[in-house]
């Protein structure tokens, strides 16, 4: 088979930005990007507007009263969300919509499992902090519009607007991939022989499954 290395992702090391409080518990990926945009090309010039589209825009295109529409939050590239961010549909378009707006990091108490994995695959850092920490950060961001948060992946720490440091856990392999901007297929093909050997053994042992 022929295998080309795909485009490398932008490596993630440290990042600081205006941060946006998203006060929506269980924010499902249908809210992050409604289904009717799922067939659109990722390089569609409108793509950035699909993020939170129905929370941000009225039917006539005018803007609703939503935090990401407001100055200075609309320039935010770090989101601080609530529990179960990105639950529901597996649509990777939700990550594409974040990406189209330059969002590089989402901090939340918990994430939908599939969305979490989709973030990692696209070079967006999902950070799990406690509910209390996220609530504190969101309150600080509401009280101080335009306040910044800094994220350091190498030291696994988040610095809040008041300079409080929060450490976070991340899977070693996920961290390695994010820091090096590695594409998974290229990485996996380093194990090509192992895959071939396994497939042969698997076929011999579980002939019924093939």
């Amino acid at each position, binding site marked *: 088979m022929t295998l080309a290395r795909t485009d490398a992702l932008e490596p993630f090391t440290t990042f600081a930005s205006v941060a946006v409080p998203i006060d929506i518990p269980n924010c499902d990926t249908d809210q992050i990007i409604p*289904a009717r945009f799922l067939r659109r090309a990722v390089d569609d010039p409108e793509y950035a507007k699909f993020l939170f589209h129905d929370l941000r825009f009225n039917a006539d295109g005018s803007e609703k009263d939503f935090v990401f529409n407001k100055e200075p939050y609309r320039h935010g590239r770090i989101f601080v969300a609530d529990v179960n961010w990105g639950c529901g549909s597996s649509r990777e378009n939700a990550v594409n919509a974040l990406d189209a707006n330059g969002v590089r990091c989402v901090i939340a108490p918990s994430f939908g499992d599939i969305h979490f994995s989709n973030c990692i695959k696209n070079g967006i850092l999902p950070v799990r902090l406690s509910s209390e920490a996220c609530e504190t950060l969101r309150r600080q961001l509401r009280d101080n519009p335009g306040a910044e948060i800094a994220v350091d992946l190498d030291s696994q720490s988040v610095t809040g607007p008041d300079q409080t440091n929060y450490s976070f856990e991340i899977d070693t392999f996920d961290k390695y991939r994010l820091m090096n901007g590695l594409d998974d297929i290229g990485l996996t093909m380093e194990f090509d022989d192992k895959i071939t050997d396994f497939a042969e053994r698997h076929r011999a*042992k*579980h002939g019924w499954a093939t």
Partner: protein
Amino acid sequence: MGKTVFEKIWDEHVIFEREDGDVLLYVDRHLTHDLHFRSFNAMKAKGLSIREPDKLFGVPDHSVPTTAKTIDDIPAGEMREPVEVLAAFAEEMGFAHFGMTDDRHGIVHVVGPEQGITLPGLTLVCGDSHTSTHGALGCISFGIGSTEVQHVMATQTLWQRKPKMMRINITGRIGFGVSGKDVILAIIREIGTAGGTGYAIEYAGPAIDALSMEGRMTICNMTIEAGARSGIIAPDEKTIEYCAGRPYAPKGEKWDEAVAYWRTLPSDPDAVFDKEITLDGDAIAPMVTWGNSPQWALPVTERIPDPSNEADPMVRADMEAALDYMDLKPGMAFSDIKVDTVFVGACTNSRIEDLRAAAEVAKGRRAKVRTLIVPGSGLVKNQAEAEGLDKIFIEAGMEWREPGCSMCIALNGDMLAPGERSASTSNRNFRGRQGLGSRTHLVSPAMAAAASVTGHFTDVRKLMEEK
């Protein structure tokens, strides 16, 4: 130490384990559908080929209008393109594809088990969160994103970390008028929509054992709505009987080998679960959701809750926002909530047993509101017609449609108008899920049919007693 059914299957598919615990997992079956058309184009643009095309199966479902019989019937543009791209990609790459004129086509999560592509003991993935459905046959199945779709196509593997193990036991037996849908809604109400995050959930207990394969599939289908990527029910004689003779199931000696192996799969008595939950199956009533998360479900006999009784201010605000969006008032009885449209279908509830349950209620009655009945596959449709169910629906004034995802995701022209309210057998009541401004209440097929013939939510048990 004993192993769970999930662990037994997992261990048979580990190609390589890194020191940090990440595993390169071998994938036995990959199902795909039209909505991944851009991934197919990306594969070609990157010059990637499909490593094991005989393990890949494609079927159009998301974009297919339920009034269309062929690709040419689909309006040109964004609805038709994904279906065309899938068909051409399957042809070029040489994997099985069940096109619209093939009776085997339908919703990917109905087609897999129906064809025997899904079998106990396998690992199965699909770029759709409701892939958890297939675990009802005793396999590891989970939804993946589009980058992972391409990864599986190119390598037949995925990098994974073993989830934590949860077992949910349903004791007793479920009563008349109660179905798998009510069981899973009761579970999600109990553990919450993030309750299963990070876990694979095994469903067990006498009430699960007693369920049909269709009922089990409905339960596993909505596992993702409880936050878990993967649901599983250990294979038993019912599972084996279900798989026997299906087109892609093993035959002859291989079948015997498979069955012998499948019988070793149920969780060992000393298997360890990180979390275990027990619910009383006898206590489960027909359920209706009232909010914009599947966890906001209640027995039809209860009333719309009052947020002011909720102590947690964040939860209270969430409930208030949901009631506002859904245009409901605290204390309302479900029977006072009128519906505009009823939808029976989706990968949750479009199998033959679901249609039979809806038909039993519809028989001799008249739909009071627009009602769409959308079978899960061409074969389900044929079976239903052979049993005369189509006539029952049509005589009741309901619409008998072609298979597809339809009003579950509203990408095929079937949708609600802004502000419209549905009783729906689908799996998500998220804001706008069935069209911009749509209001969705999740119910079982029998409860959906009861809402159709009365025009409002009705306890199907009472309705059927009256007959």
